[in-house]
């Protein structure tokens, strides 16, 4: 796989990921991950200190599906949506799993129309070609801030 092709495939993965969340097709979101995977939402401060506890921690695709099931069936929060703006991936290593880092912004729009720059950060990814489909073996969402407004319901 050439560098340009890898870059393009990663960029396509990221935009598909973002579009799935932003268009509320959350049930499809776990499919972006391998069955055994790591999905973690942390902050730059916790990441730098090596503190492992995230506000979200999943080590299986099934746990991601559970999170969506909980959001749909159990959790109470006001209607809101995200708009992800995802940067161009920096490919750090492509010898085995693709190791990449990608900046992102999320604008959150609440039911009453209020819009906030909700999160800025970087995805630290390990991506594997799973039978011709790129999936995340690991996606660590490193938020620049450790402060979160009200709640983080929808995946980042």
């Amino acid at each position, binding site marked *: 796989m050439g560098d340009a092709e890898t870059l393009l495939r990663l960029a396509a993965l990221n935009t598909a990921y973002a579009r799935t969340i932003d268009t509320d097709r959350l049930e499809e979101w776990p499919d972006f991950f391998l069955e055994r995977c790591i999905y973690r*939402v*942390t*902050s730059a*401060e*916790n990441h730098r200190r090596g*503190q*492992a*506890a*995230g*506000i*979200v*921690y*999943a*080590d*299986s695709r*099934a*746990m991601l*599906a*559970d*999170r969506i*099931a*909980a959001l749909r*069936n*159990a*959790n*109470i*929060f*006001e209607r809101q949506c995200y708009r992800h703006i995802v940067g161009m991936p920096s490919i750090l290593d492509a010898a085995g799993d693709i190791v990449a880092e990608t900046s992102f912004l999320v604008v959150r729009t609440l039911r009453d129309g209020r819009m906030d720059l909700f999160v800025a950060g970087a995805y630290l990814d390990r991506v594997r070609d799973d039978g011709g489909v790129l999936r995340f073996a690991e996606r660590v969402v490193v938020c620049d801030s*450790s*402060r*979160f*407004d*009200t*709640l*983080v*319901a929808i995946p980042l």
Partner: protein
Amino acid sequence: MPDDAAALSFHPDPSPAWPEGLTRVPYWVYQDPAVLRAEQARVFEGPVWNYLCLESEIPNPGDWRATHLGLMPVVTVRTEDGGIAAFENRCAHRGSLICLDDAGSGAKDFTCVYHAWRYDLCGNLKSVAFRHGVNGKGGMPKDFRVEGRGPRKLRVTTICGIVFGTMSDDTPDIETFLGPEVIGRLHRVAGNRRLEVIGRYTEVLPNNWKLYAENVRDTYHASLLHMFFATFKITRLSQPGGVMVSPNGGSHVSATYAPTETVDRAYDGMRSVDDGFKLADPSLLDTVDENGDGIRQQLLTVFPNFVIQQTHNAIAVRQFLPRGTSETDLNWIYLGYADDTPEMRTRRLKQLNLVGPAGFVSMEDGCIGGFVERGAAAASDETAILEMGGTGTETQDTRTTEAAVRGFWKLWRGMVGH
């Protein structure tokens, strides 16, 4: 009569009387900026124990951590002799913050960046830059003394590796402040093993801090608002449990035991029930009974604004600090024990999905206070009702009660003067 009594009773005109007893709370108490000012003086700087940090965060001399007493910035420091000192994070000269970061280690002293006034680890002023002037000109008056100058100091106590501080000489020792029931349960979660911070997040709540103080003491709402709890039988009011309230009313501990009934009918027909809902990855709730007592969840408060919780194997401290009448910083400090096995640590990381800003169980608490703020926006003179479980503040063997919420108001009113 206190100087600001008139300001306290600002709303409406003429001033309202607080209804008799502990079963009503007027909404102006969450809305009035004068109340927040009074709370700063009489609650946060009053006869209470404020959470400062964990001992394990400042193990060596010169290690320090910054936090707040209400609105007041404070620094907590491990001193040269191994003791712990705490002082207001405010330079005695012009009021600038002395420490700018959240934490540091190995400090020999603290120097204000503004004019380089320098303090020792206990917050005593040691030197003043250009005190004797430059080239014989300027400088402080000859009779200026550094002795006795410095930011205000706190009295510090530690219990179970947790450091608390107070500004008041009248604060009783923490054992008396909390009483034997709460102390016993504090030992249960924090007294036997060394706590270690494994993550730290802040949730910005769109509400007055007291709405959160009530929420954490409100054992009635847990399985009604938090549907995840009920659905997965983490806690239901029909599970055994109860609430203990400290003698002064202000602090509490609630416990929920593992369910005993296989079929639960108490919630039939209510929103928060879906017995068919199963986890695809049940390892989330794979729980080890670390204390051998069957307590699935323990929530413990220390008045005014500290919580330590155990939910299955997730352990966390919550500290909530006012940032204004209708904004509160909820600081989540995720914990493990220093001697955790790797397997137990991973279990804690997974179960911490239950708590925090994205927590399956906690996320609703982030927004519910805002719903009250918005619902009661024009209802300053109306009151909330607190009659569940009677009118008192006594320990009860049920969680279908608002006893601990009434207890909070009992102590708060005694301090603030209503």
